[in-house]
Each structure stands twice: as C-alpha cells, then as structure tokens.
C-alpha cells in the first residue's frame, strides 16, 4: 500500500501545470482530488513518474451561470457542487448527483474535472454531461461530451492537456438520478438519469458499458408518446455490459430498464 516513488510538483497556474507536464512527459499524471489516482498508486496499479498537483491553481473552482449555460470549474469539489445555490437553481440534477458521489471524505476532496478526465465507466458526472450535450473545456480546446468519453478510462486528452471546466446547458425541469448500489458509498452498479429539457426527455445511463450511455431509444419512444414503462423497455437496447462481481450482464440490462422507468416516474 505504499506507492512507487514519484516526483511531485505543484502548479499555481494552468500554464505552469502544462509546462510541468511537458517537462515530465508521458508518464506524468495530473493530481486533482486524488480519490481515484491515489488508491491506484497505493496498489501500484498506477505508477506515474511524476504528479502535477493542480489544487493550488486559483480560479478553477468557479460555478457560474452565463445565459443558458452553466460553467463549472474543473477543481470544483463534489461538496461545493452539491451545496451551490446556483447549481441547485440552474441544473439541480448535478447537485443531486454530487451528493451521491462516494462519501463525505470523497465529496470534500474529489473534483468534477477529475471524474470527467478519469472517465471511469462508473463515474456519475459523465452520464449527465453526455446526456445533456455538455462541453468539456481544456487549456487548448472545447470537446463535446459525445466525443470525449471514447472508451473505458479513455479520452482524447493529450498528455499535457488539462480539463479546466465543464459547461452544461441550464436545465431545471423535472429530473432524477437513481444510483443502484449495495452500500451507500459504493459506485453505481447501474445508474439512470432522466432530465426534461425543453419539453423533451434526456435519458442517461451509468456503468452499463465502457462509457456512459445516452439512451436515445428511450428518448425517442417517449417523444412519440410512449408511457414510461413502455419506453424504459428500450433502455437496454444495444447494451452489452460486462459482468462483474456485483452484477451479471443480464442483471445490469434489467436494472437499466427498471431504473430508467423509475427515474422518469420519480422525476420532479
């Protein structure tokens, strides 16, 4: 449980962080909240040569509504997202999701940028970002969420590229995120999100494949007037989830259908 030796540098600006990443090269990792990276390092499943700590960068934890967009800085902690009045007003589903991430210790340290960049299939924010067509903004470019989550732990981010903010559309209509898990602090076995945007449902699923999934078939069925229980039957269309210790592929697909229906029914 002792990580391999690594170099450590703390950046005070995005530019400095990029320079440090350039200096350390491919084997460097960005350290934000550290709640995914450090456990992996302790188990020596990750052995980066260097860590570039971006926690000292000021101004990366902003929460701002600008017009019909909500800008959330990459270093914004889950707790801040959960307790932000702006988010509760402009995109309440995000506050709801933040309150369900990990436990208090994780929520006080973990960041939205870290979750997005890590691209774990069980991450909750990626589902919301994908479903709502959010943009992932880095020091170099803006990447639409649909192009960002390419595969398990795989994004288009370059070695010296840092996520700086996530830009969501404002959406404060009926919404619900249901996270099915064994223990309160666990990752989702399956998660389902429902959000009404301009009179149309958006449906997202967590941990039913290597990337978050937008359940377009459900959205379309609902658009054509199907009842939630009918539409939700399409939640598993095209899914091919991997089984794990907690759930078989079949069960995950079943959960996707059940949770989707419940999310739509319970959305408010």
């Amino acid at each position: 449980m002792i990580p391999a030796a690594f170099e450590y540098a703390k950046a005070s600006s995005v530019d400095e962080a990029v320079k440090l990443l350039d200096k350390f090269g491919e084997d460097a990792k960005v350290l934000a909240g550290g709640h995914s990276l450090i456990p992996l390092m302790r188990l020596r499943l990750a052995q980066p040569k260097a860590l570039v700590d971006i926690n000292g960068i000021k101004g990366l934890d902003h929460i701002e509504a600008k017009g019909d967009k909500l800008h959330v800085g990459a270093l914004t902690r889950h707790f801040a997202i959960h307790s932000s009045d702006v988010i509760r007003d402009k995109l309440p589903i995000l506050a709801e999701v933040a309150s369900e991430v990990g436990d208090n210790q994780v929520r006080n340290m973990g960041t939205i940028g870290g979750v997005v960049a890590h691209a774990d299939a069980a991450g909750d924010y990626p589902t919301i970002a994908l479903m709502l067509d959010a943009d992932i903004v880095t020091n170099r470019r803006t990447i639409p969420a649909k192009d960002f989550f390419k595969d398990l732990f795989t994004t288009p981010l370059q070695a010296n590229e840092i996520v700086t903010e996530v830009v969501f559309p404002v959406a404060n209509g009926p919404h619900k995120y249901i996270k099915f898990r064994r223990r309160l602090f666990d990752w989702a076995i399956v998660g389902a999100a429902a959000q009404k945007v301009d009179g149309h449902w958006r449906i997202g699923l967590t941990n039913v494949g290597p990337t978050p999934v937008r359940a377009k078939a459900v959205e379309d069925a609902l658009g054509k007037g199907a009842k939630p229980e009918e539409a939700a039957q399409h939640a598993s269309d095209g899914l091919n989830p991997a089984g794990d210790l907690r759930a078989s592929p079949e069960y995950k697909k079943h959960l996707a259908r059940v949770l989707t229906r419940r999310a739509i029914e319970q959305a408010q």
Partner: protein
Amino acid sequence: MANGDELHPIQQAFWDEHGLQCGYCTPGFIMAAAYLLEQNPNPTEDEIRRGLEGNLCRCTGYVNIVKAVQTAARTMSSTPARKTQVTAGGN
C-alpha cells in the same frame, strides 16, 4: 479535541454510549461525527448513518456510534459554547 481533562462532547458521548470497542476506528469516527455535526447540528438518524458512511467499524455494528452522535448533538445544542470548538475540531 479534548480541553485538558475535559472531553469534547462527542468524545464524552462515545464514552457514555459505548460507541467503541477495540477503539481502532474511533478517532476517525469522532472526526467524521464532528464534521457531520458542524454541517448539520440536529441530524436525523438517517442523516447520521449517511454522514458516517465513509468510515468502517467492525466491532460495534454502528448502533452505539449512531447513538453517540445523537447524544453529542443534544449536548452540543444545549451548550452552544461548545459549538465553536467543534468547528476547530472539524477543520
């Protein structure tokens, strides 16, 4: 957290309610409880259980830990002077 020999109300409550057995997880639970009560001075039982979700205990079955937090919340809300100390402890 203790002030000399005077225990913090959370420590006192863990003692009073038998909120520990082997004691190994106890400092973590006391700090988690301090944070929880700082955020929410009058938590419901469900809120306490949720607030402690990040800490594991293998001895107590959590029953008396939850009781201890309830007791501490009562003591602290009836003696406001102690509240500031929790902030110090919680940070």
